[in-house]
């Protein structure tokens, strides 16, 4: 009888140890998936596109807080231009600096918005006339 109780107790103890071990393992794997500093990162597909900006649609690098970016979006939306927006301030750590470095390859001042137009044109800032010329007059560049 005593040996049965001891066996059951040993099984329970081993089960508890196994559960604790697995929980710790899962927690460390989950930490490894987190970006630097544990901060939330933006959409990873958009990050990949931002780093390799090849698209039939215009790609706009922007900030969520930037009024010039908001005005640009309003203008593009009002003119039914289909575009992709990548908000750099939604990323942190190396992803944020990687994207900024990429923006500087098209716009050395690193200002926002920076819009890559299919065909190679780059529009910097809220520039209605340039957007009209590049995105509205050229039928081949709007989606």
């Amino acid at each position: 009888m005593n040996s049965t109780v001891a066996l059951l107790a040993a099984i329970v103890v081993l089960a508890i140890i196994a559960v604790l071990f697995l929980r710790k393992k899962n927690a460390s794997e989950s930490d490894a998936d987190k970006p630097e500093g544990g901060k939330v990162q933006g959409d990873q597909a958009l990050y990949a596109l931002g780093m390799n900006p090849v698209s039939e649609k215009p790609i706009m690098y922007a900030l969520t807080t930037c009024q010039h970016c908001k005005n640009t979006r309003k203008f593009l939306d009002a003119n039914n231009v289909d575009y992709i927006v990548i908000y750099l301030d939604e990323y942190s750590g190396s992803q944020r600096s990687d994207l900024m470095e990429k923006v500087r390859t098209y716009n050395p001042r690193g200002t926002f918005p920076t819009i890559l137009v299919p065909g190679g044109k780059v529009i910097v800032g809220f520039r209605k006339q340039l957007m009209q010329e590049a995105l509205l007059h050229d039928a081949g560049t709007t989606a």
Partner: protein
Amino acid sequence: MTPEQLLEHLAKCAESKGYYLHADHEHCLGTAESLLANKERYGYMCCPCRLACADKQQDSDIICPCVYRDADIAEYGACFCSFYVSKEHKDDPDFFPDVEERRDPSRGL
């Protein structure tokens, strides 16, 4: 603090220096909301038109009002965000000059 309260406070501070907030109230309100969002995000009211690196020391030149405001207003009549304007343009809601970034790119990210 609400965006409206922030605007009221910043307008008073600006006027004491001879500057004014932009005449487009919607633009100013959006900027004030963004300043408060940055305060929440970084702990300080970083310029909403520039990408912060989230280090206060490194971002110190772009905490609003940024150190470039005076030179920008002197040259263009408005700051980089067109948030602060000179007396000459204080009543023009359509005044949005293209203000060239004068911050050294090596300072930011």
